[in-house]
């Protein structure tokens, strides 16, 4: 849902590219909403990981690389000991996905902070259907939510295998 809001903002920005202020405000808001879409996707994972999770936005990448990765690593070690290669493969995929997801969260958050708190840094028109904020293209931001969904699914599946909660 939130990615649809973002896409509408992205389209409105394109439609109003001749009105510089409108273009800038709709454009940067699109970055903000794409970040928020990612946050909502990742929040579900964090809540499944720990139902009492109430961490801040900026603590998510650290927690992914810390406690979430830790639990999956322990599962992988145990799987290796039992010689269950299917399980350790699932854990390997999840660990790679954790790394990618943490990096994606950091990037998206950085763009959100730029969009929200740095009004002097403007959205740049790049022609065609493209515009950018500090050289990150809106088409990249558009892919954040679906990429996050893919990573979250890989992490979730390993976590559920580890916990028997599938």
């Amino acid at each position, binding site marked *: 849902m939130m990615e649809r809001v973002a896409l509408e903002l992205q389209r409105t920005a394109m439609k109003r590219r001749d009105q510089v202020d409108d273009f800038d405000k709709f454009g940067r808001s699109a970055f903000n909403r794409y970040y928020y879409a990612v946050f909502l996707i990742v929040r579900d994972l964090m809540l499944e990981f720990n139902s009492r999770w109430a961490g801040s936005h900026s603590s998510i990448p650290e927690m992914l690389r810390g406690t979430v990765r830790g639990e999956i690593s322990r599962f992988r070690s*145990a799987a290796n000991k039992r010689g269950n290669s*299917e399980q350790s493969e699932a854990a390997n995929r999840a660990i790679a996905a954790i790394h990618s997801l943490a990096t994606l969260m950091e990037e998206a958050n*950085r763009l959100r902070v730029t969009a929200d708190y740095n009004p002097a840094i403007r959205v740049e028109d790049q022609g065609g259907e493209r515009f950018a904020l500090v050289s990150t293209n809106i088409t990249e931001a558009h892919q954040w939510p679906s*990429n996050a969904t893919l990573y979250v699914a890989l992490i979730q599946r390993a976590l559920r*295998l580890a916990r*028997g909660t599938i």
Partner: protein
Amino acid sequence: MELSDTVDEVLARHHITAAGPLIMNPTVDGGVYIPLSIRRDSEGRQIPASRVLADIQRDLQELGVVAEYHLVDETARVIDEGLRESLVERFPNLIDKAVVSSEGGSVQVWIDTSHEVDSAQAATIKEHVQRYVELFNVRSFKVGVASEAKLPSNLELISLIRRLSPVDCYTLQSELLARKFDVPSLTWLNHKLDTMRKAGLVVRMENRHYAVTPEALQRLGTSKGRNSPDVARLLFLARGGK
């Protein structure tokens, strides 16, 4: 001293120039993002090196500035985009979506597909990625096929049966669907169950309910603590098997 002056001074000490105006991050005390252009030498090493970037962060930390980087890596972006496009073009019937991300000179590729990818196809995809990254100074790469994206694996099926046993194929199907898995048909599911039964992983009881064998339990393993699969099983039983 202004935060931006502090950053400029420390950057100058390390002979580094920011690629644009600093990005203030008021969500963190003393937080700032430093935009930097990244290049690579002929061996694919990053310039400025990660070590230099870490030194700058440490120096700034001592002055109360929490700095992170906004790295602008044009080459990496072009490689990522090109690779993504080439994959979808080369394997139009196999790959629904390719996700490419690179960091520190190593590339990660995720293939998402609605079909099952056999090992020969996976090898062809991997080869394609390898040939592509060899053109650039990419130091390492990894291809993950998120294959059978929505189909439950045998492992996932056994794990679910462990928790819900004794369970029939109808309940199993609806539980899988509730967990957003694809179940092509009951025939497909029964075929899976049959294969697992022949492999000695599940038993079928008189009333066509399934349970896991000691062999399967052994393979699944368990762990201690709050998140143990045994706890998940006990909670299921405590709820009266619902």
